[in-house]
């Protein structure tokens, strides 16, 4: 593997790492397997790209993506908590609707951002050359997101959110609405996923309506790799694990491609990877 390959993997790992943090919230904190992310990732990219073509400041376009993602999460939350549709199906329904919505947002299936000002070109124009512009920006964003998330999960509301996924009966006994907590968790989760989508779009230079396929599996892979490699002793360690997991995941994909695997086989590889990591604890137990 040459250096440029390593740098690309690292950049992708960081950009998608924010998505993995979002999946961590829904999957691990809320215990809610939320498939909305396959739609909210391209939603973030679509909103950001469309606004860029309209001449919006690239940083503000990230904010718009965050809001759009939060709204997508709220819809899944509404379907699940108010209409009592099962979590998996709620996510699938929102994800499916988002495919049409993303096309509407973009007005076409693909928006190229070549030559447009993005957050990455902005930093480059400040005099920081490639690849440092990308790396610096991505590291700043993901560290900020991680620290804010850690802090939030240690507030009173954060405690309630964590207990909701862990023992909903207990949280109701504490006088807290599990529905509100689920809603909040899904909003935050999908807001982060959409932010990640917007970053990925600006980073790779285009937004595409199909770029979200397999997001949930990649996110799960990152979360689980992180747990196996770094552990989950505390929230702070767990979120580091998610980011490391995301980077390792992108590296393993790059290595697989370098070894001659066809790009079209990647989804299969990812799925197998997730299965292996998910079953590792059970296999270890059985072998003991």
């Amino acid at each position: 593997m040459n250096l440029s390959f390593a740098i690309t993997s690292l950049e992708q790992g960081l950009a998608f790492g924010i998505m993995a943090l979002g999946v961590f919230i829904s999957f691990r904190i809320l215990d809610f397997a939320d498939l909305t992310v396959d739609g909210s990732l391209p939603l973030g990219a679509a909103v950001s790209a469309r606004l860029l073509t309209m001449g919006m400041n690239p940083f503000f376009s990230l904010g718009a993506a965050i809001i759009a993602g939060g709204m997508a999460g709220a819809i899944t939350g509404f379907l699940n908590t108010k209409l009592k549709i099962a979590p998996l199906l709620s996510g699938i329904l929102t994800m499916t609707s988002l495919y049409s919505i993303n096309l509407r947002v973009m007005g076409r299936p693909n928006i190229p951002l070549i030559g447009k000002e993005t957050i990455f070109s902005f930093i480059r124009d400040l005099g920081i050359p490639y690849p440092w512009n990308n790396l610096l920006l991505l590291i700043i964003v993901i560290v900020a997101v991680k620290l804010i998330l850690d802090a939030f999960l240690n507030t009173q509301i954060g405690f309630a959110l964590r207990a909701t996924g862990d023992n909903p009966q207990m949280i109701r006994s504490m006088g807290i609405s599990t529905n509100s907590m689920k809603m909040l968790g899904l909003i935050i989760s999908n807001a982060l996923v959409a932010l990640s989508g917007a970053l990925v779009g600006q980073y790779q230079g285009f937004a595409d309506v199909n770029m979200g396929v397999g997001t949930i599996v990649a996110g799960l892979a990152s979360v689980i790799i992180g747990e196996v490699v770094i552990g989950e002793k505390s929230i702070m360690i767990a979120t580091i694990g998610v980011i490391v997991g995301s980077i390792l995941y992108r590296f393993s994909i790059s290595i697989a491609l370098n070894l001659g695997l066809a790009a079209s086989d990647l989804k299969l590889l990812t799925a197998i990877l997730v299965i292996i990591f998910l079953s590792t604890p059970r296999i270890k137990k059985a072998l003991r």
Partner: protein
Amino acid sequence: MLKIKNLEKIFYRGTPNENIAINKIDLTVNEGDFITIVGSNGAGKSTLLNSIAGVFPVENGTIILDNEDITKKTEYKCAQKIGRVFQNPLAGTSPEMTIEENLSLAISKSNNLSLKWGLSKHKREIMRKHLEKIDLGLEKRLTTKVKLLSGGQRQALTLLMATVANPRLLLLDEHTAALDPATAIKIKNLTAELVNENNITTLMITHNMEDAIKMGNRLIMMDGGKIIYDIPAAEKADLTIEKLLKMFEIKHGGKFNNDRMLLSV
């Protein structure tokens, strides 16, 4: 302080499995009452507590707590004034969170949730004081995840969490039934201590006749969704298990059929 009027709860209404779990119950609980509730299987004891706690809607009747109609309030809204401990010692705590994080939620119960830190020096001091009282050494293990505690330790923690915010009403549903005998005794003593100290109005279901007689100031016996006896403190003092069983047989016209209870008599 708690007034229940004409309460009726029917499960599977309008089906062949229709089951009248609570059959037009009236009950007035006075401030500071500690009521033990006994009855055979299916008597409606748990359903009564769950109805008060707002777990499900009831068919008929009203439940008034502190002059406020809570009949239609959902579970989490009722919980703001009501503390509960369940039979399952795992039900009342969050296993992946630490002792201090669990307790923090209980201490902030009376306030609205906010973005303030969940833990603080001040809060930890309060926690240590409370944990010292239950005398299980948990005050030295604030950062231990609750899943690492034994069932008895978790039930003690749940009991503390249910009482620490001074609820208006405490509902205990056979909360020592799943524990080993020695631990059960500890939890019972702790219950009496916490309830007396804070003068919390309490309803406690128990399968143990002896406890039902010894603990509390009032005893209620339920059968077939009705309250068949409501025994005040004065009479309760002279009660024996034999007397209680006889009283049951007179009203019920048959033997007492709570399997767990027979074992413990």
